[in-house]
């Protein structure tokens, strides 16, 4: 069945901002889909509000709408573009949900848009728990017993029937958000309430508990001719009860016999058919009772998912790309397997290695959040590791997580009762406590009882513990071997042991610690004994066919030899003899975390694209399976490896690149700079000296003095007393932060000695033994983010972003606008002059990001980062110039003049970047913004009018500002004067105002009509009652300080949980009022990014 000829134009919906449960995997799948569809000569109309994605690059789709993903906006796009079909299965739950809304409102029918991939019926059969259960019943499959409820009392009846624990899940949400496990009535009541609120259709299910059962996922694909194949099986290490996204997962399944696996496979095939996903990929989750083998179906996603991205990376089978082609009418047997190119895509990948995925968490950013892992996803990123054995892959994954572990390390020594408690509770660190449990002699059987983790995995862990003990026992002998103080025969035994240790995935650092030698000695011994990894291919077929795509992982194997000819040596890559730079390695950013996410992957991908355009061979190194950078199509060679010095140096040894690019992947690759330079690896871009001048506090101060540039006064302190004296000398308010931490960890603004004492103590604890840094804080200053690109001689300001919130809020969390909307021209020119001057002084080759604060017409420098920043994709998209590519070309020697890089800044429109936060996942955590970054993603709102651009950014971020109703206002004293104008404007726009007593008094003083409402501690009914009753449509509540009062936290938490817009800064309120005013004047309109860019060229 060849491609359909009746569809020419396809609408594709992306997944919007990165949030917990929906990360860059949908950029990976969406980008693949766009390419696959355009390859077939069809036109792609793309909608995605997330500017940090590769898919929203203007070249990826024919028309790209960086607009909010709502039914209203989509209708406008459909009206304008008149697509023939909509493909809703590649943009995660967001795309699926909005598609359902479009259908319900009759928009698809009205505009004659055909759904391809999955029909509305199929989506509903999969998503609606009732219909799903009916469908499973009809094909003889079981689901956990469950009853649906639309009200609290209905739910309660069911709970009585099932008993505790039971599971509560809301229908129609993302990533299982809002669900939970209730062990008692009290927990039950609170979870049910939240779940009912979060469900888009106010429906929840109460289910029998299948806690501790084994959990599996199968990735299934189906074509129009009803061919069905399984791409990958995944087994969760953490049993049922922990969300798959938070589980350590392993591919392929490890503990199923063929008979059991085939039953699961049969079930998955029946399910995709019965649900009626016509074409494309789906993911089916199962659980298996470990003692009886009873198989239950948990759920099915009728779309590509996080797991399908993982499955693609785990097997080499490009699920999203194939899914897109199948939606166009092809059948699986008509499409080639990319990897072999000779065999068809209609087959099932088989693998000859083990894949382990480990989640990365960020609980340190959300003090007060419940860090127990439950059915609601909480992790913010993941790393994947490939090895020939579970032990090898797991250890690689543990160091790839970048949580300061060199493998499966646990240095602690907990008392037994605490250890048992830690091991019994699913949490981020549990896997490390298990190590102590095993080494302290707790048996596998007992651990299985305590954790529900399958004995097979525990057995592997126990095996690793034994290996480590055995290695340690050999320390003296190994030390002697390594220092060459023994007979050749014993040396040989030492070499053998070292190789064996590497086969178990031990890093050089771990071995150095075990044997009491320096890491460099281990490397020297590996060199002497020729113990380097083999790089094996991910080839979909366990070596049965020749693979054409160079997608590698490292492993250590026993060397093979020939009786007569001796050792079989792998062909060594010889250093390129051609002059110039012909082969470049780009180092990626590893797992996503708060502060280092898709923005950096975007830059790495752009570097790869630019290098390939220049004809340079690109080698990508990264460990994040969600990303576009780890698509084997992105670079010439992909090494799926942990981003550590050892792993990168091994690849350098193997590949002999002419240069390495570190400045795009965030802090991860930068941390390798020293080690790589020491090993003589040429680093492209700004020289290490100049990087040092920007990063070293003292040197940087000196540079600023030379240039006559201002910085807020600052100093360091080694004790609390010293800190107080310093702060007084500098003058309050002060910004306090620890040394050597990133993303604003433990950074706080303090106004008094008492506050300083408290936070300085925290800072000392965050970075023990190092001074705390104290800066004068410029209150109410305007903050700016400026990206500079340079080629060493010429420098250009890429974008100048004005923060909408005042200084003091982490730049990653602040809303920003390009071009600056309140700064006057003179100041813009002054900032620009300083930025260029700094670029010149630091001889920037590539990118640099500078943060400025402007107060009373004076420009202060806050921070300089001589590398790509989080704002690069946003600026590139807003200005129509791909700055990461420009920077890459500059690193390769192409001047900015040659590249004809235009000056940025002056745009005939406004682009607003807004951040998206995971607060709904961490109930009870205060949502106020501060110097510590907590957002997971970003959106862009773009329009010719600032108010409308801001409004779009708010809608896209899920903050739907009302145009009528009641506003609740409660602001801190400092803001009381500033709020008046805002409140008046809201009143003029027809809003009713209610306020707490103090705020109300001020507003009344200015002649406003304001109702007073009680604060939480003032009795009832109070503001939270009104919030819960739906009597308030907008909350403006600025925190009274960095140690907020409990009732403020409660107000903001309740508002967030209710999905009400909650504004926590005056500046944010001002911009919002601006937006509301514009929206009440005129409806929002849509325009593609290509159209905006066209405006720049005319």
């Amino acid at each position, binding site marked *: 069945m060849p491609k359909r000829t009746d569809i020419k134009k396809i609408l594709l919906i992306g997944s919007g901002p990165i949030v917990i449960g929906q990360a860059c995997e949908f950029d990976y799948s969406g980008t693949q889909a766009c390419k696959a569809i355009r390859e077939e000569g069809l036109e792609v109309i793309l909608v995605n509000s997330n500017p940090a994605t590769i898919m929203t690059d203007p070249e990826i789709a024919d028309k790209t709408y960086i607009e909010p993903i709502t039914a209203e906006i989509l209708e406008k796009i459909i009206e304008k573009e008149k697509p023939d079909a909509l493909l809703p299965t590649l943009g995660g739950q967001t795309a699926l949900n909005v598609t359902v809304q479009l259908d319900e409102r009759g928009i698809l029918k009205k505009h004659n848009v055909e759904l391809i991939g999955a029909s509305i019926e199929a989506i509903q059969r999969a998503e609606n728990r009732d219909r799903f259960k009916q469908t499973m019943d009809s094909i003889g499959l079981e689901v956990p017993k469950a009853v649906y409820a639309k009200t609290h009392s209905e739910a309660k009846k069911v709970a009585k029937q099932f008993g505790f624990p039971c599971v509560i899940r809301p229908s129609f949400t993302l990533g299982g958000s809002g669900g939970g496990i209730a062990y008692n009535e009290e927990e039950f009541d609170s979870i049910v309430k939240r779940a009912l609120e979060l469900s888009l259709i106010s429906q929840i299910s109460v289910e029998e508990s299948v806690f501790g059962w084994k959990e599996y996922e199968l990735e299934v694909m189906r074509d129009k001719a009803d061919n069905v194949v399984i791409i990958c099986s995944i087994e969760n290490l953490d049993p049922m009860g922990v969300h798959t996204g938070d589980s350590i997962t392993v591919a392929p399944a*490890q503990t199923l*016999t063929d008979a*059991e696996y085939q039953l699961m496979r049969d079930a998955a095939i029946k399910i995709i058919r019965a649900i009626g996903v016509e074409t494309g990929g789906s993911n089916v989750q199962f659980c298996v009772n470990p003692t009886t083998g009873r198989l239950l179906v948990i759920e099915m996603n009728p779309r590509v998912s996080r797991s399908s991205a993982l499955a693609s990376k785990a097997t080499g089978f490009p699920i999203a790309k194939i899914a897109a082609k199948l939606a166009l009418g092809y059948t699986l047997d008509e499409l080639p397997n990319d990897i072999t190119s000779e*065999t068809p895509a209609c087959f099932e990948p088989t693998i000859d290695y083990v894949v382990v995925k480990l989640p990365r968490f960020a609980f340190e950013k959300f003090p007060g959040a419940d860090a127990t892992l439950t059915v609601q996803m909480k992790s913010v990123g993941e790393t994947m590791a490939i090895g020939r*054995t579970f032990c090898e892959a797991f250890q690689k994954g543990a160091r790839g997580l970048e949580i300061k572990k060199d493998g499966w390390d646990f240095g602690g020594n907990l008392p037994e009762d605490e250890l048992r408690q830690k091991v019994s509770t699913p949490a981020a660190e549990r896997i490390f406590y298990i190590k102590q449990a095993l080494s302290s002699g707790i048996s596998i059987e007992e651990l299985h009882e305590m954790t529900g983790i399958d004995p097979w995995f525990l057995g592997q862990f126990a*095996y690793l513990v034994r290996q480590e003990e055995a290695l340690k026992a050999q320390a003296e002998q190994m030390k002697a071997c390594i220092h060459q103080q023994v007979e050749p025969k014993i040396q040989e035994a030492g070499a053998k042991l070292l190789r064996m240790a590497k086969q178990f995935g031990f890093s050089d650092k771990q071995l150095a610690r075990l044997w009491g030698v320096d890491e460099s000695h281990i490397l020297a011994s590996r060199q002497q004994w020729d113990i380097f990894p083999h790089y094996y291919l991910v080839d979909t077929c*366990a070596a049965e066919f020749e693979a054409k795509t160079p997608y590698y992982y490292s492993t250590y194997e026993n060397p*093979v030899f020939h009786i007569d000819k001796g050792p079989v040596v792998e062909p060594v890559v010889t250093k390129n003899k051609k002059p110039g730079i012909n082969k470049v390695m780009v180092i990626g950013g590893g797992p996503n975390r708060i502060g280092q996410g898709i923005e950096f992957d975007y830059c790495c991908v752009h570097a790869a694209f630019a290098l390939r355009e220049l004809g340079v061979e690109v080698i990508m190194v990264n460990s994040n399976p969600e990303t576009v950078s780890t698509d084997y199509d992105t670079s010439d060679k992909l090494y799926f490896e942990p981003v550590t010095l050892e792993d990168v140096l091994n690849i350098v040894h193997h590949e002999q690149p002419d240069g390495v690019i570190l400045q795009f992947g965030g802090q991860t690759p930068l941390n390798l700079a020293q080690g790589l330079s020491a090993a003589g690896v040429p680093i492209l871009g700004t020289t290490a000296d100049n990087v040092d001048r920007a990063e070293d506090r003292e040197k940087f101060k000196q540079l600023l003095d030379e240039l006559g540039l201002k910085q807020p006064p600052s100093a360091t302190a080694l004790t609390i007393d010293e800190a107080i004296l310093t702060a007084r000398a500098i003058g309050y308010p002060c910004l306090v932060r620890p040394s050597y931490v990133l993303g604003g960890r433990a950074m706080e603004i303090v106004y008094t000695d008492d506050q300083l004492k408290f936070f300085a103590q925290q800072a000392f604890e965050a970075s023990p033994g190092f001074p705390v840094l104290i800066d004068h804080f410029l209150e109410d200053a305007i903050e700016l983010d400026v990206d500079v690109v340079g080629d060493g001689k010429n420098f250009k300001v890429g974008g100048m972003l004005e923060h909408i919130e005042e200084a003091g809020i982490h730049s990653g969390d602040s809303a920003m606008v390009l071009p600056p909307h309140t700064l006057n021209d003179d100041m813009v020119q002054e900032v620009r002059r300083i930025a260029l001057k700094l670029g010149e002084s630091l001889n920037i080759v590539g990118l640099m990001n500078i943060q400025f604060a402007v107060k009373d017409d004076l420009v202060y420098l806050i921070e300089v980062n001589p590398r790509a920043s989080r704002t690069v994709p946003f600026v590139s998209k807003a200005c129509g110039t791909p700055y990461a590519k420009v920077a890459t070309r500059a690193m390769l020697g192409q001047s900015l003049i040659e590249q004809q890089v235009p000056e940025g800044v002056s745009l005939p429109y406004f682009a607003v970047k807004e951040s998206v936060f995971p607060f709904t996942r961490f109930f009870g955590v205060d949502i106020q913004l501060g110097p510590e970054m907590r957002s997971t993603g970003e959106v862009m709102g773009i329009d010719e009018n600032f108010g409308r651009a801001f409004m779009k950014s708010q809608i896209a971020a899920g903050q739907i500002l009302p145009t009528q109703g009641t506003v609740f206002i409660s602001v801190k004293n400092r803001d009381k004067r500033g709020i008046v104008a805002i409140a008046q404007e809201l009143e003029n726009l027809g809003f009713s105002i209610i306020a707490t007593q103090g705020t109300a008094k001020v507003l009344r003083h200015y002649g406003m009509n304001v109702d007073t409402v009680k604060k939480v501690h003032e009795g009832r009914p109070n503001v939270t009652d009104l919030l819960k009753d739906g009597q308030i449509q907008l909350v403006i509540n600025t925190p009274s300080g960095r140690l907020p009062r409990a009732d403020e936290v409660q107000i903001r938490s309740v508002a967030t949980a209710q999905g009400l817009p909650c504004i926590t800064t005056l500046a944010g309120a001002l911009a919002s009022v601006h937006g509301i005013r514009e929206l009440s004047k005129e409806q929002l309109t849509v325009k593609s990014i290509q159209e905006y860019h066209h405006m720049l060229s005319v």
Partner: protein
Amino acid sequence: MSVKQAWLILEDGMVFPGVSIGAEGKTLGEVVFHTGMTGYQEILTDPSYCGQIVCMTYPHIGNYGINEEDVESRKPWASGFIMRDLSCITSNYRSSQSLQAYLKENNIVALANIDTRALTLHLREHGAMRGAITTSDDFKAILKEVLAFPTTSDVDFVAQVTCKEPYTWPLEGTDSPSSGPHIGVMDFGVKYNILRSLHKQGARLTVFPASTSAQALLDAGCDAVFLSNGPGDPAKVSYAVETIKTLIGKLPIFGICLGHQLLGLALGGETFKLKFGHHGANHPVQDLETKKVEITSQNHNFALRLGSLPADTVEMTHVNLNDQTVEGIKHKQLPVMSLQYHPEAAPGPHDSHYLFERFFEVGFHA
């Protein structure tokens, strides 16, 4: 665990070091690789592997141990077993024994910790070849033995695996006998799951030794004949080809794997040896009639040559989408059909189970 060094030595002189994990001693055979990720117990007990040393490409083997049910014949047949990693622990609710204990108990020499991917690549490049697993480091002497060892085409392996006396299926006490059509199974090394599948369709089964004559089958009152799977080169089983020739036109015939090759020979076709065979559970096969693709379980080193079969009487019904080899044939006029692959699975996907039904339709309802 005390580990004993061991090696795989191939006839071309390649040596793969590892450790001995099965029975003591040495074994010789043809080395093949299997790409299935599960099903080692079924593979070990599949008589088609008689004479072969099987290397599993999936690295962890033994994870779920050995159970009582998943056996494909009365004992394991493989000459040797090779894997990257023998699981240090067994975990499955049905498991009654560890793989290692089973290998030792059944006297199967096995090798672990070798670079199975390097071995697979080598066999892919150079073809299946003879080899030895040994704990002796006198490589030259072992190599000599390997080179003197008979090749697959020198030996009639069927004679080693076929039953000595006819028997009926189901085996006593395992399942209730059926009253449907009586099928005579020519046992070239039949897998139990074929018998289970035919039984499930309602057949009464008698299993006959491979050397049974056509007349004896007819005399036994068979309503149809089933030609089973089995090991080795079909050319070594010419006696069976003669039997089949006689039966064509007299009874409906259904063949699987070796049975399919023998049927092809009886119909006038030729067979040839594949470079490294098909051993796995992920081979796409297209049913040429419906155009649908099924994912199949495969295990064969020989295949029917496309075009060698008389076009007026025989047509290809199934084709392998990886290498376009013949996967199924049928007689244009008679109820005679066969498959190269394994619709009974075990191990492998169940996609092709419908072919047992089709056989019944063709054989008994047409």
